[in-house]
């Protein structure tokens, strides 16, 4: 969970590993505050989100390419095609940091918007808006290429 959040957010295996290690070292320092396994999971997810965002800000070398400008694949992937998965990951990587993290928590961690709001420390309405807007952009981008038509 921790490494995966960092990996999908940062798209850099080395940096994701370092970030995940930092999260577990921090857990070790704060073990006395952890009350239940559910609390530990919430805590780990929350700190993984914060550390991943911090790492991305420190790195500041993520290509700032708007979603609309991402190159279209020359071959049209169909739903269920592994190529579509790669394309979706690349598209998500181009989202601004907060919508990107909201999408990762929604579809990797299977959290509902209220849980995402609590984890990220932002209002519920903002989370819903990030997800709806990101889905709309992805859908538009894919459907323009005929992906998703059955």
């Amino acid at each position: 969970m921790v490494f995966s959040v960092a990996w999908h957010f940062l798209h850099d295996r080395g940096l994701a590993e370092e970030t995940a290690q930092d999260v577990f070292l921090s857990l070790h320092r704060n073990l006395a505050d952890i009350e239940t396994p559910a609390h530990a999971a919430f805590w780990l997810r929350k700190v993984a989100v914060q550390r991943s965002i911090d790492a991305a800000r420190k790195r500041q070398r993520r290509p700032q390419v708007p979603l609309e400008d991402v190159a279209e694949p020359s071959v049209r992937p169909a739903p269920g095609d592994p190529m579509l998965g790669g394309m979706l990951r690349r598209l998500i990587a181009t989202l601004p940091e907060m919508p990107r993290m909201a999408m990762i928590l929604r579809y990797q961690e299977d959290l509902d918007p209220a849980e995402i709001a609590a984890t990220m420390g932002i209002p519920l309405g903002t989370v819903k808006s990030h997800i709806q807007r990101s889905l709309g952009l992805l859908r538009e981008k894919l459907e323009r290429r005929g992906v998703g038509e059955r």
Partner: protein
Amino acid sequence: MDWLEQELADALARKEPAAGFDGRVRARLHRGPRWLAAAAAVLVVVGGGEAWRQYRGELAKEQVMTAMRIAGSKLNRVQVQLKGTEQ
């Protein structure tokens, strides 16, 4: 969940770190924080700089004292000569 959301769930499936992650975390835990080593290095540099400044200060003070002693003895000689001239 529609087809896009299903594709997103597949595309963002959990990834595992490289084997040995636990061991690497434990190794960092025993190694201690990096800031401690960095702080120690800074203290050595700052401490060394302070000692060097103190040494230079002492040296300068000695030079000033020597210069004053020389100036004092010359002044005495001049005064003696002046007294001799007056008499």
